[in-house]
């Protein structure tokens, strides 16, 4: 018996030793291998690059699909949607009657703020990066300022007063900042960006194929020009002074192009503008968001054609008839809309084709700019019946040089002037659209006529390009307070003669009476329930 106890005793000791071995404090302290904390970041150039990779990644996602971006631009007179099917979230914008529970609204709101958050991360932390040239840090921070301004610009023109978040902290009581204050931040951010962003990046991935991929100084100036135009218009109505500022900023870009500082130039044919041939090296694009199907694909816009088309569209959007009708003929119109549409019978038809009695659900012109060929890298051919893929890699063209020309003309006109230079720039745009040197615009125009010509040319340039651009047709109409007019027009919904003896009208009904609350989207209820300040 005694022996047994002795053995047991020694074993006991062993067991106790085994159990007590790991020192307790070490045992319970976390060591997150392979992961990074904010505190341990920004330790060198690599981290700085990585923070930019993240920022641009967030941006690419935020503009990669039309439920994240651009749904609200269906308010424009260029574009409409399907009267039924699953298009309720798009339709509400087209009808100027957006509900706070619109299922796409919250993503559109959140995605802007995600970009802001990724930008704030750089703005608030990157300065401490050691061992990196000050210039490099400044460039990174300048880019972050740009995208923050870009995002607030989207917010202020869609919701008006919004919470302004500059720190990386959670605030359930964030107040709404006035439109004036939000614009002040945008302008200040853009000025910082203008100082810091280079004219031309020298290394990949910030520049490739001879074009800037990241934000360059020209892009900031162009953006600032358009922001000033918006400040000049509704709702701040700052008028001529700001149109002057807008014209000046546009002119800086134009002069940079003229003196060779900037590489931008108009492509010769409008059909090249959205072509795959120039997808990665389009000299007309001042700022683009670049996709690649193997990495970050963009979705939706490339199948944004009618549901009854042979190539299998989603029917998200279609052109509005009056806008199509007013659109001047020429190469620009041919590249903007499908010249003919192929229906499931395999035949090519005019878009207004219908049977007797009528059988088509949506009879409307169809935008072709964003459509992508099912064969990767090849140009889209509307006579090819092959079914489209919904994943694509067409570059989102945020700002093109042609737009800056239009803004220059419009801003100059609205500031009360007509200059040779403004007319010339506008003629460049129109001549290409016409495919000939028609030189339609002259200095004999009144400032008002020049402004409207610039406004219209811009509309035709970006017609139907609703999810991707800085300045969509809807945003132009917003700053010019022209939604109301179009609302009344859509309510009437007159038959329009689209071909001799053929009359067509819009399929989506617009009802109710106008009030200015229709200018903005409501705050998404998902956030309004978290913060009581999110109410008008």
């Amino acid at each position, binding site marked *: 018996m005694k022996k047994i106890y002795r053995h047991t005793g020694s*074993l006991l000791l062993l*067991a106790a030793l085994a159990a007590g071995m*790991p020192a307790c404090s070490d045992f319970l302290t*976390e060591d997150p291998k392979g992961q990074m904390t904010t505190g341990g970041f920004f330790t060198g150039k690599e981290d700085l690059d990585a923070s930019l990779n993240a920022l641009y990644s967030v941006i690419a996602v935020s503009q990669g699909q039309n439920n994240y971006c651009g749904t609200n631009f269906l308010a424009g007179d260029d574009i409409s949607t399907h009267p039924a099917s*699953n298009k309720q979230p798009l339709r509400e914008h087209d009808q100027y009657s957006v509900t706070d529970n619109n*299922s796409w609204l919250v993503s559109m709101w959140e995605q802007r703020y995600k970009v802001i958050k990724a930008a704030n991360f750089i703005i608030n932390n990157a300065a401490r990066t050691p061992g990196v040239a000050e210039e490099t840090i400044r460039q990174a921070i300048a880019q972050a300022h740009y995208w923050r301004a870009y995002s607030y610009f989207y917010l202020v023109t869609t919701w008006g007063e*919004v919470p302004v978040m500059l720190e990386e902290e959670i605030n359930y009581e*964030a107040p709404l900042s006035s439109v004036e204050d939000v614009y002040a931040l945008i302008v200040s951010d853009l000025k910082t960006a203008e100082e810091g962003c280079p004219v031309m990046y020298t290394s990949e991935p910030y520049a490739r194929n001879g074009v800037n991929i990241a934000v360059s100084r020209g892009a900031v100036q162009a953006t600032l020009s358009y922001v000033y135009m918006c400040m000049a218009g509704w709702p701040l109505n700052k008028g001529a002074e700001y149109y002057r500022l807008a014209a000046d900023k546009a002119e800086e870009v134009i002069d940079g192009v003229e003196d060779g500082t900037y590489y931008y130039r108009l492509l010769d044919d409008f059909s090249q503008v959205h072509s795959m041939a120039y997808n990665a090296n389009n000299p007309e694009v001042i700022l683009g968001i670049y996709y690649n199907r193997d*990495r970050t694909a963009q979705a939706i816009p490339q199948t944004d054609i009618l549901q009854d088309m042979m190539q299998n569209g989603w029917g998200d959007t279609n052109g509005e008839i009056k806008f199509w009708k007013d659109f001047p003929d020429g190469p620009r119109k041919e590249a903007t809309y499908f010249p003919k549409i192929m229906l499931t019978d395999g035949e090519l038809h005019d878009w207004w084709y219908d049977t007797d009695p009528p059988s088509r659900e949506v009879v409307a012109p169809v935008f072709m700019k964003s459509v992508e060929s099912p064969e990767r890298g090849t140009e889209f051919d509307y006579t090819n019946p092959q079914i489209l893929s919904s994943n694509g890699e067409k570059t989102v063209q945020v700002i093109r040089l042609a737009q800056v020309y239009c803004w220059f003309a419009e801003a100059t006109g609205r500031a009360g002037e007509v200059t040779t230079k403004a007319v010339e720039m506008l003629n460049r745009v129109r001549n290409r659209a016409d495919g000939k040197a028609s030189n339609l615009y002259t200095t004999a125009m009144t400032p008002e006529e020049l402004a409207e010509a610039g406004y219209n040319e811009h509309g035709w340039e970006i017609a139907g390009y609703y999810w991707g651009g800085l300045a969509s047709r809807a945003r132009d109409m917003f700053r010019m307070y022209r939604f109301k007019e179009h609302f009344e027009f859509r309510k009437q919904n007159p038959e329009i003669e689209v071909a001799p003896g053929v009359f067509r009208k819009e399929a989506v009904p617009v009802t109710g009476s106008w009030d200015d609350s229709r200018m903005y989207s409501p705050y998404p209820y998902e956030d309004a329930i978290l913060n009581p300040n999110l109410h008008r």
Partner: protein
Amino acid sequence: MKKNHKWVLFSLLVVASPAALYAQGEMPAPGKSYEVEEILQNGKKRVTGLVTDKHGESIIGASITVKGDPKIGTTSDLDGRFILDVPPRSTLVVSYIGYTTREIRVHRRLNNYPVVLEEDNQLLDEVVVVGYGTVKKSDLTGSVSTVGARQFEEQPVKNVADILQGRTAGVEVTSSSGMPGAGAKVRIRGTTSINKSSDPLYVIDGIISSSGLDGLNPQDIQSMEVLKDASSTAIYGSRGANGVILVTTRSGREGRARITFDGKWGISKVRKNYELLSAYEYAQALNDIRGSQTIPAEDLEAYRNGTKGIDWLNLMTQTALTQDYSLGISGGSEKVRYLLSGNLLDQEAVTINSTYKRYGFRANVDADVRPWLTVSAKLNGAVIHQANGAPSWFHILSFSPTMEMKDPETGVYNRDPYNLANANNPYGVAMENYSDSYSYNLNANLSLLFKIAKGLTLSVQGGYDYDHSPSYSFSSKLIAPGAINSMNNTSNMHRYWQNTNNLTYQGTFGDHTLSATAVWELSQTIDTGLQAGGSNLNNESVGYWNIGNAAVRNESNSYSESSLASGIVRASYDYKKRYFLTAALRADGSSKFQKDHRWGWFPSVALAWDVAREPFMQRQNLVEQLKLRASYGVTGNQAISSYSTLGMLSSTSYGWGSTSGYTGYWGNQFATPDLTWEKTYQYDVGLDVSLGGVNLSLDWFKKRTVDLLFQKQVPRYNGGGTYWVNQGKLDNTGVELSVNTFPVKRSVVWETNFNAAFVKNEVIDLAGNDFVLNANYSDLGGYMQIMKPGYPLGSFYVYRWKGFDEKGANLYQKQDGTLTTTPTSDDLVVKGQASPAWTFGWNNNVTWRNWTLNVFFTAATGYERLNISRFMTSSMTGVTRFIRLHDAYFKGWDYVQDKADARYPSLTNPDNKNYANSDFWLEDASFIKLKNISLSYHIPRKFTRIAAIQLSVSAQDVFTITGYKGMDPEVYAGYDGLDYGAYPVPRTVTFGVKLSF
């Protein structure tokens, strides 16, 4: 020492023996023939005998003594035989643990006595496994339910959830999918956590099961104990809040080797389908709604005469075969006992192409290597192979029947041209893509039990759980126009070790019994992952095995680790088995929390009073037990993932338009250094009554969870997402009843077991929020569910549907009571709940001679399902551009002549708004299911000579009585309570044969 040793063996055997309830009336033991009485010289008579169970299997180690003279005695040998010299005209007492003791008169002219022992149904003597120890059922102070092998042996079970479902009150098991190998939702006494797992803790033979129970062969399970009240679960401290399920595996028994073979063959089929539009009907509907040219006339004719058209349901489902084989060998000597078992399960899904295979092996060995030391080693190995995951039922139900399957030239499968946007052809995916997931699981468990002194033992236990789960997938470019082919290899490794040192003292001093336990335990989990994938494969023939073949590649790896250190003390005391007291305290330190918030303390106390043991109750023999129980305790939840409090940078990858991947980091998460345990306080009052052969248990409980690990929504203007806080309160209150009895106990024996449980779940506070929305489907209408103080978790948040307007648009009730076609978020109301309020189980075993019939029902009521499958197949919304459901067209506004007959809204009215979060789609899901019915016949060994054979035929999920319109009221997908293409549980017919050698 010897006595002690015996006690241990004794309890081991008790635990190991299938606790049995079977019993029959006393019969005389007839001898084969009368012999001449032979009186030995010492005046005694030599008798021989054979001890067997009712199936004729010999019982080894049964004790045979003489009544009134216990000094004369022996035990049965390896063949169950015994020889004993007894005084003439004495009475033999034959006993064996787990069996009813029998007394046999020694006849004058009879020398050979075959003794048939019946299995014991005296539940009160059962030994129950509790956390870090065992206790006699009659001495329990807490609320513990036992599910023994006997309760499920008549049902062909494939996994542990099958065993638990409907077996015991307070354990709610919901099959979330009918896919082989799919998990189930197991809730003990309701859902206690909002954002963190409410799954119970599983402990296999004392070691926490860290990699799940998938690798465990149900045939190896001896019993499962469900710990429900806090006095039982608090011993598991920070992991005990959701209840604990203790799994005890079988052990070998002393005696001749027993070989058992168990084979089962099953045939499964989908039980109920939606009625969808046929190809012709669909084509007509398309032409009617979308325009008459949508389907050209010649195609229409082809759909009518059946030369064209796709029946997706028929194409994608099959009659599935299941094979399940187990082989077991067990036996042992007095000192060493062993059990070896092997298992092979091969299961097909009722949808094409998917299979689930499990190969398992177990070795359990117990050895008394010294009188003071018992060593137990348990080893379980399993290989699981899941080939091809489940197809999307939503896609199967939604794809248009009027389409071409694929491009005849390129072989590329078509997408749906009319209905489902952006979804790959499910048949194309099944035909061209493939994936294989494996799990290589090894579970080792070694324990040393030292008997230090009388009543004092030390057990040192080490457990190691290793799980390597690689998975491989390949996606072809043929699955859709423009599809990019890709491959992926993932290799995840999970390792867990645990060391538990348990010092226990047990002693009886007169009327006082004391048991005290102290435990020191350490455990650690390490997970690593490695992934490599690629796209744009040059050649598809290499499948997923050649990453060099991929033009674009991506790769990632990961590491996470967490540790837990714990100390436990517990004391139990009883006086005359009348008054019981148990008190325990556990301290847990978790690495998941930062320094000052690391340690949690979890106390508990329980009292019990067995009134039947009072002197004044001794005159009657009707009430065997009348025990009142009360307990209180604190448990915790720490189930956040490692590093959650640190606020790590989020990683992204962007190509800047190129095929290269540039890695990025940004601060998308928030650090939460103050985060700590979630705590659950639980009160329990219970009553155990054993009265005239009826055993009844009744429990009332209230659980309050505070400092909820709450995933608070970050406003989208702060970037969205969520972060962890310790805020909020949640209550679960409930009643549980279980009854066990033998309504008939003659030549026909009917044992019935009924249990019912009610649980009321109520959110008390939500970190100060008025409500929190949940289950977001932005394209279907937004949030489907809401958490709100005063309402249960999983409450639905819906618009009130009120018929159609004069143009067939859905009408919804506004907040002010008026009707509208365009509701806003103000008009949403809280309605219904996802988890059943009441759950029932009713198990019946009827035996007659060699026949056994099992009938097992489960039922649930007081809950709803949001039938999104029905919504999506009958509404044009989100990704569905058309409808599929027969009634949505033929009973739709546009079709019916008398608009009063319309059951579904207009498909042409632009003002019609479709919301899945509408009570139009919220359906009562109450059901009664015949879960199992089986009939088996036992052929004793004496007929077959070689083996005892049991043949059985059974059916599982035979029928469901329900008003639910979907395929299965039980399953859900996406979020609890949402039937969004959920995979239904099929009906299965199983044939079985069991051989014992």
